[in-house]
């Protein structure tokens, strides 16, 4: 059997932070603290969870935008977290990214043509100047932008069009996996629908795998095959779409889903209102990290950390309620 496209094993990323002048003990933000998952070819895995829980840090670790603290990131059977620059170059081509803010991620001085040509040249994908031109124009067709727009610069486009340029740039490298970090979050409702549809079409057309990072659960449900729910640097539940949305098991997943207001006036809802704020990842709570807000907390939760355990064929949950005592 071929390995999954992406495998992440016990990934940790601890950011050192400046502590006070006389404070000898170094402090860390435990942004990602032991996360494991896999993504198959052509699959969409969504990472959800509240602001600061470590979603983008996971994405950036996969893109190797920094060195990780520990763990492994394996692409198509080959470790990339410690790959040498030569190997890394080819690996980089295979994993691309689309960010939230299309404006700040595009160079304002470059024409669209050059923005798209850059990755094609960098990875040596074009056989000739004509081939380069063919690739660049067909990318415009793929993301449904007019070819005339190739000579314009990013500021001449609307937010949705800029996001299409960002997607075209990612596709230019012919990747197998695209990390979409809040790629549709900043867009207006009507434009968001256009981009969501485009991403789904592209996935089908090119067999792309997506790591879809988002805090919009309704969009996630619409887009995804599987979901990993994060809380304070850990995955608390992973399951296929159906299980997550029909039968969530982790108390945090339940609370998160119940908090989403439904666009149906008069809908009978009983949101689980969590108390308090998300604790700081500098000093995550001992035991279960969710215990300070969990409605079902009991003694064991405060001292012992629950591990992810299988509760169904493809469902994994980290909660003491799921374990034999």
């Amino acid at each position, binding site marked *: 059997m071929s390995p999954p496209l992406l495998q992440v094993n016990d990934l940790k990323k601890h950011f050192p932070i400046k502590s006070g002048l006389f404070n000898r003990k170094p402090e860390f933000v435990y942004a990602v603290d032991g996360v494991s998952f896999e993504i198959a070819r052509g699959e969409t895995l969504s990472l959800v969870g509240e602001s600061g829980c470590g979603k983008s840090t996971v994405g950036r670790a996969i893109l190797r935008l920094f060195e990780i603290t520990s763990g492994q990131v394996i692409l198509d059977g080959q470790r990339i977290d410690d790959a040498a620059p030569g190997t890394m170059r080819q690996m980089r081509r295979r994993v691309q990214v689309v960010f939230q803010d299309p404006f700040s991620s595009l160079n304002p001085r470059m024409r669209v043509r050059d923005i798209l040509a850059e990755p094609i040249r960098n990875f040596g994908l074009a056989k000739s100047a004509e081939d380069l031109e063919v690739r660049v124009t067909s990318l415009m067709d793929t993301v449904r932008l007019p070819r005339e727009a190739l000579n314009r610069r990013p500021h001449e486009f609307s937010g949705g069009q800029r996001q299409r340029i960002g997607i075209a740039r990612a596709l230019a490298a012919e990747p197998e996996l695209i990390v979409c970090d809040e790629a549709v979050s900043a867009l207006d*409702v009507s434009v968001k629908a256009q981009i969501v549809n485009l991403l789904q079409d592209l996935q089908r057309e090119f067999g792309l795998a997506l790591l879809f990072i988002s805090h919009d659960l309704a969009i996630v449900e619409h887009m995804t095959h599987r979901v990993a729910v994060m809380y304070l640097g850990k995955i608390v539940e992973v399951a296929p779409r159906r299980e997550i949305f029909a039968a969530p098991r982790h108390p945090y997943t339940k609370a998160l889903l119940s*908090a989403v*207001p439904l*666009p149906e006036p008069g809908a009978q809802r009983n949101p689980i209102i969590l108390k308090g704020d998300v604790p700081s990842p500098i000093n995550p709570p001992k035991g279960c990290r969710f215990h300070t807000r969990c409605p079902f907390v009991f003694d064991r939760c405060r001292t012992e950390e629950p591990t992810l355990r299988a509760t169904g064929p493809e469902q994994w949950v980290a909660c003491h309620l799921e374990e034999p005592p």
Partner: protein
Amino acid sequence: MALLEVENLQTHFRTPGGINRAVDGVSFHVNEGETLAIVGESGCGKSVTSMSLMRLIPEPPGRIAGSIRFAGRDLLKLSDREMRAIRGNDISMIFQEPMTSLNPVLTVGRQIRETLMIHQGLDKQAAEAHAIEMLTLVGIPEPKRRVGEYPHQLSGGMRQRVMIAVALACNPKLLIADEPTTALDVTIQAQILKLMLDLKRRVGAAIILITHDLGVVAEIAERVMVMYAGRKVEEAPVAELFRSPRHPYTQGLLGAVPKLGSSLAGTATRLAEIPGQVPDLRKPITGCVFAGRCALATDLCRQYAPGLEEKGPRHIAACHYAAKGAIAA
């Protein structure tokens, strides 16, 4: 009885690219104790409408025309001094980004206290005690400690709750909330929405809620006004609007958002797209503002702007074919 009556509000800005008709002839009312939601995509004039009500539009480059009658008085005719007395007293506002409206160099306790001292004439001790009470009411843990902290020491959710505390410190008759939960996580949003509902029940304030989140609208609004390109294009009671939207833009908005539970209901199909994008408000628009994106547009639409017409009980929409659209939908 209408607490607020806005008549033909026009707020225009002089810009290098021409006059931006950010709000162009909008009329609406809010009854006492009622919650009106204003929805629409970014740039359609929601914030400019609310800033106009508070008379917080910089003039120039802005210019406000029309009339804004609040409890019988036209706010546009008041002196700056009279307007200051209304702001933060009879009408208060929660802004999109709490950090911009809280003063970063004053402790949160002092900010609530000063509001109370200025508007309610309380002395320092009474104001301090009341400030702690307000923070408790909005669910801030350890309020006695928090009154001594600065805004940057609080989380986003706490800052938003402090803003609500400041806004409600004077029992306003009208609370304007501009995207009060857009920057917050859903679990915190749920806390804030519950808080707003509780306070409304307790104080009986009318609320104008500005948002683009249709879920939030369904949750707390009684009536909804839909804006597009600086105009009001539809207005109806909330259940009626969601059940039978008449304007093609409203229909498009409702079709473009996926609903939680879609995968189970088997409705996770393709999202409806509204092609194109909003028109440039600096260019004159003839005919219907939505014609450039509307699937039903005809020559009539491109030539003549539709007026707001009654399409059902308390339900108005500005579309030449609204009734037909509703039957077709």
